[in-house]
């Protein structure tokens, strides 16, 4: 295992210290319990958004704390959901009296810990709603699984719901928008190489030099199937097919196309993927009205990419375009 780290168990806390030192203009980092809030404290009367989950997916979620997006992020250990304590602490810290929305990726651990935290926060007098994100079409959604995972679509939910909260929507309205974004978003990923959790010391799976793993999760979980490496265009088509047929997306739709790097893939490759995805959508009469390309929901140093499509309506576009000022996403005014 080759990493720029000191003690493998101090990875998250040392990294948070670095984040605090680098970005004190945007965020304030609390330690013990660990959570990240906007610099400047809670905004009275605004619905607050809290998300979190295992670390190792940066910039998710800490990189999305700031004006127009999250109010707090709660990082767990690498690839492990945080416990309820820091979630409760973050929830209490950012409540501005209008209630708090928990944005939770659909993993058993995240769901259970956020559930407990929400109960505890309610006891403290904070109204909490939760939205569970499950945009990953790689997993069959059935009664007989833990359901679909929450992956890159989470960023789109955080941005659009964050903008809704910023314009003054109440808790039910913000939760409804978040739910609606999740319902209109579909994702699918591929890994070329695995990642290595620092405290584990070994890659989470192994792939031969000519193999890729289709339908990968963001925790180094193996995916849907293992196939020989193909040209980028063929892989893009493989990822798009289940996304398109699932919602389904159809000719005439307007979409946001999000090509997300898993951490270790060079930008040139992300744009080669974007090129084919945009072309394939055009061929089907689907309009790419907005786009996002980059490493936003990562799996440490994993090489690979995920594609997310969000079906847009006018409100989504307006909220997507609204100003945002976080470490990782910044535009507007």
């Amino acid at each position, binding site marked *: 295992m080759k990493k720029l780290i000191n003690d493998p168990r101090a990875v998250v806390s040392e990294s948070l210290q670095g984040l605090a030192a680098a970005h004190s203009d945007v965020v304030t980092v609390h330690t013990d319990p660990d959570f990240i809030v906007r610099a400047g404290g809670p905004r009275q009367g605004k619905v607050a958004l809290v998300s979190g989950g295992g670390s190792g997916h940066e910039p998710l979620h800490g990189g999305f704390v700031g004006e127009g997006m999250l109010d707090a992020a709660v990082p767990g250990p690498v690839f492990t959901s945080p*416990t309820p304590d820091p979630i409760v602490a973050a929830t209490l810290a950012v409540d501005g009296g209008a209630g708090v929305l928990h944005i939770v990726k659909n993993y058993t*651990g995240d769901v259970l810990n956020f559930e407990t935290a929400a109960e505890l926060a309610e006891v403290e007098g904070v109204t909490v709603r939760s939205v569970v994100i499950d945009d990953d079409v790689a*997993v069959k959604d059935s009664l007989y699984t833990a359901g679909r995972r929450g992956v890159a679509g989470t960023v789109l939910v955080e941005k659009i719901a964050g903008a809704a909260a910023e314009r003054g929507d109440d808790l039910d309205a913000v939760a409804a928008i978040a739910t609606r974004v999740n319902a209109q978003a579909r994702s699918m990923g591929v890994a070329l190489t695995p990642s290595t959790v620092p*405290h584990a010391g070994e890659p989470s799976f192994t792939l031969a030099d000519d193999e890729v793993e289709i339908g990968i999760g963001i925790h180094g979980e193996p995916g849907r199937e293992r196939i020989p490496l193909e040209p980028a265009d063929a892989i893009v088509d493989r990822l798009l097919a289940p996304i398109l047929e699932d919602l389904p997306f159809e000719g005439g739709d307007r979409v946001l196309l999000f090509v997300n790097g898993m951490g270790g893939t060079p930008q040139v490759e992300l744009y080669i993927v974007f090129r084919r995805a945009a072309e394939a959508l055009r061929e089907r009469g689907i309009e790419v009205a907005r786009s996002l390309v980059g490493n936003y929901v990562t799996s440490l140093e994993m090489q690979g990419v995920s594609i997310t499509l969000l079906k847009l309506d006018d409100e989504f576009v307006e909220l997507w375009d609204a100003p945002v000022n976080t470490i990782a996403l910044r535009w507007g005014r």
Partner: protein
Amino acid sequence: MGLDSGWALAWVRESARVIAEHRAELIALDREIGDGDHGENMDRGFTAVLAKLDGVEPGTPGDVLKLVATTLISTVGGASGPLFGTAYLKAAGAVTGAEELDGAALVALLTAARDGIVLRGKAETGDKTMIDAWSPAVDAAAAAQADGASEAAVLEAAAAAAESGAEATEPLVARKGRASYLGERAIGHRDPGAQSSALLLRAAAQTAAEAAS
């Protein structure tokens, strides 16, 4: 004469030791069909439990279990944190106030623990989760107790059943937790949470046997 808080403390200490010893093995199991952190999660939790034990009055077995519960909930995270946390919390509730636990109390403790996990995780037997260790353990303990077995023998039956139960998860397809994403590819791998459950129950049996001798 039943098992007292001395046993409860010994069980917890032995649990911490055995989890630390099998940390790498549990990580390896979780790497195969999960995300490779189960050993780390459990070890972090029980290390924290050990630290908490230091300054604490023994009290009743229920008090010890409650301390374990809250510590696991606030340090483990992941799926196993809330699940084991609830298990110990419900177990503590089942034996509140008792200074010593007889066979019937142990069966109640184990049943409450199992039910707590089901309550939170909604898993059924055969879903390839820790329930596949706990459910047979509860059944075996109840049967042994009905046969008039000693406390140590009740826990021995539970431990043995949990171990077979963990082993029996290998041919299964998972229907809960991360391993459920894998479909058929989970076949042939043992569920890490079932394995750690078997380790915890083996620790219970062993410390009970030592207490009896």
